[in-house]
């Protein structure tokens, strides 16, 4: 599997987790003190979030860092 495949699956995991939690990008953004643009960029694989933001996203979605951000 190439690096881009890894990235794509990682980004999709975040998107699916958010949708499964019944949250829109804006709602997730509000919950983690980020903007919708930032959440969109993370899901599109265009921005690597800090550990602080990753943790906040995981807590909000009830997932672990392994579930969402580890390959």
């Amino acid at each position, binding site marked *: 599997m190439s690096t881009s495949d890894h990235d794509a699956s990682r980004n999709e995991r975040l*998107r699916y987790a958010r949708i499964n939690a019944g949250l829109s990008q804006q709602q997730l953004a509000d919950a983690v*003190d*980020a*903007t*919708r*643009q*930032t959440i*969109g*960029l993370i*899901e*599109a694989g*265009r*921005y690597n*979030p*800090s550990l*602080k*933001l990753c943790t906040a996203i995981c807590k909000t979605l009830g997932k672990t860092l392994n579930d969402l951000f580890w390959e």
Partner: protein
Amino acid sequence: MYLINKWNEIMGPKDEYLEAQECKATKQAAYILLTGSIITLYYVIMLNQVASTTENPITTPLGASLIPVEYPLIATILIAGVASLSTQIKAGSFSSYKRFAEVDRIPWNFVTAVALLCGIILAVLTSGMRIVAEIQIVGFDQVAWLGDFAIGIVFFVIAFGLGFAFTACAIHSAIIRRRQSEIELDNLL
């Protein structure tokens, strides 16, 4: 420290991506300012050196025909400001504070506050520097206090007007760019 904490408390949380973009823009402006300042400094040093070695003191009619030192400095400051601002606008942001980063309409109270700040800074600088210059050239007794304050008021009005228009345009462009970016991201998913 207390004031910074109080300010952060009032402004609320920052978005880390926008903060990163803000840092990038600030770094860009700092590089341009540094480069421009060094070039200007060398220009002044070389002017003085050439004037000295060719025995042409600059404080003669020759001085009037040279490019004034202020010009490259003004150009540097303008280029740094515009480059930094355009980097932020390209990222669809004019503030990394979440409460301002996601507005859909121009926040006129914020625009007014920025314009007021521009006006006050320019008015104080204009009056203050004129007074300092006059004290050194004509002495404290000869300072034209009323004239200096009047010029300060004129500059306040100019800076307020320009600051208001420029900030509103910059925020409007940032809002449009952010919407485009959100549409692009929606289409990707």
